[in-house]
């Protein structure tokens, strides 16, 4: 499992299909490879592939390695998914098993 803190561009197929399509910049905060983190990552991957194929980036930050990064995004709960772009910034906490709530959090629900 690659939970590198470095940018791991899980970009989908070639460049933007539509120019107006919004780029999603997501950050997943985890603390080590706990079951919850792994579930969250798997769920996230799935949702992104389904709804945001080709226009998302996921950055995974492991707070065990970089604890100083926790305060920047006001992380308390683990795992936390932060939607940096598009604005507004939203946070989704938990293992992302409730798909509905994740979609609400990503502002994808209405579509």
């Amino acid at each position, binding site marked *: 499992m690659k939970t590198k803190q470095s940018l791991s561009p899980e970009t989908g197929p070639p460049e933007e299909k539509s120019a107006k399509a919004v780029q999603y910049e997501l950050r997943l*905060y985890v*603390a080590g490879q706990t079951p*919850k983190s792994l*579930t*969250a990552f798997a*769920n996230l991957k799935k949702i992104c592939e389904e709804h945001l194929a080709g226009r998302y980036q996921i950055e995974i930050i492991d*707070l*065990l390695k970089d*604890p*100083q990064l*926790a*305060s920047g995004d*006001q*992380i*308390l*709960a*683990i*795992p*936390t998914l932060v939607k940096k772009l598009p604005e*507004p*910034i*939203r*946070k*989704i*906490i*938990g*293992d*992302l*098993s*409730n*798909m509905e*709530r*994740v979609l*609400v*959090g990503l502002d994808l629900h209405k579509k």
Partner: protein
Amino acid sequence: MAKTRIQLPKSLTGIQGLDDITGGGLPTGRPTLVCGSAGCGKTLLAMEFLVRGATQYNEPGVFMSFEETAQELSQNIASLGFDLNELVKQKKIVVDYVYVERSEIEESGEYDLEGLFIRLGHAIDTIHAKRVVLDTIETLFSGFSNTLILRAELNRLFRWLKDKGVTAIITGERGDDTLTRQGLEEYVSDCVIFLDQRVNDQITTRRLRVVKYRGSIHGTNEYPYLITENGISLLPITSLMLDQIVSTERVSTGIPELDKMMGGQGYYRGSSVLISGTAGSGKSSISAHYVNAACQRGERVLYFAFEESQSQIVRNMRSIGIDLEQWVNKGNLRFHATRPTLYGTELHLSNLYEEINIFKPTSVIIDPVTTFLSVADEKGAKSMFLRLVDILKSDQITALFSSLTAGGAVLEATEVGISSLIDTWLLLRDIEGNGERNRALYLIKSRGMAHSNQVREFRLTDHGAELVNVYVGPKGVLTGSARHVQEEQDKAARLVQRQEIAFKQNELERKRQATEAQIAALQAELKAEQDRVEMAISQARTRDALQAEERGSMASSRQTD
């Protein structure tokens, strides 16, 4: 086996008074819950604990704030004289502001609060913190909807804090029936401190109580505390035992005659003196005399005035020939004049305590103590006074309390029964009669010294107070002009008496002379008689001799045998 008792390790808070009632501070390496209603100073107490830890005890600290940003905190604390930014720069304190906004968070599935642990752990590790404050962790309950997870995580957090070995303060808002709204007391069970704020007669008093302290004895009462320029200040007075060291040194009252009434030496140092009397009976003047005497000895006096301003007192005392201003200028005397209704009694007491701690006087005047106590109810007033006397005694400060007795009240049944706490009690009393009011001074009691039981007349002259012997005669105690009149009458009577004596002496002399003359006459008579008798005897003897001679010659001539 040596029976040494192992004391629970404690960390000094550095907060004035709190360390006294907890017997040395908060439990080291354990969390302490500080709870109370809004505005009672929880954050401040916690912050002072950190700052003093960092500056005085070399224990760096982490302040995790859930309500105020680092900037807000440092601004709030700066008004109390702490430079938070500087401490942060020196890496003695870390302030971490935790922001939780429900509307920005979606919850989807299982989570825990590992992020909070990591943040706190990181902050603790970077400065090797020994102290931690979580203010107010209850905010989390508004940020997360899953209270089950939250409670489990809090439980874990407090255990984790213990494992880390940090001394922590957790603050919590007071709940309706519980100590804290979210029942934090369930998790933090080692030490719980409760802060309370009450408003009585429009006057707010804050009180602190140690609800529990596992493994340690502690003061159980409610202690009033103050938020002053120097942080929190607590008055742990009611826990004091009667173990003050007493002095046998005596200090002059400033009035020689009054000294004389107390065995010629005056008050004991460190004793409490009550001067009670009706309005205008000269209470302040007696105090002023003492102030003057103490300052002349080079001591420091703190004068708490609750009715008159400094300049008024200085002016008034000048009229009886006492210059208090010089002592103010020399720094021996300090006035502290406030209106008693300005604060609650507790606040007054705390202020008093602060002032005493700063100025370090050897004597304190409280003028008048009745006004000072009038803001409290009777019960409160007595305990207040008791604490006041205790503070002063434990510091060996001689205290003069003047006490105003309302006209018509029973003079000796003073205000709130404080007289039993007093060592020396002077009663000034107006004696009315003959169309005037005069002052009389009694020394009702004076512990530990022989003292006069005499009633003296107390006069204020332009060169100070004087005590004059009153006239005690068949007509009762006379003072003022009646005493004057009586003295004149006495003088006249004495004159007449003297003249009578002289007359009698003269008469006696005359009699003596007459008697002596008589004696002389009788002696002369006796002498004449004696002369006459002696003459008769000698004549008789001559006659006998002549007769014998004649008989002899006659016989020889007859030639008879």
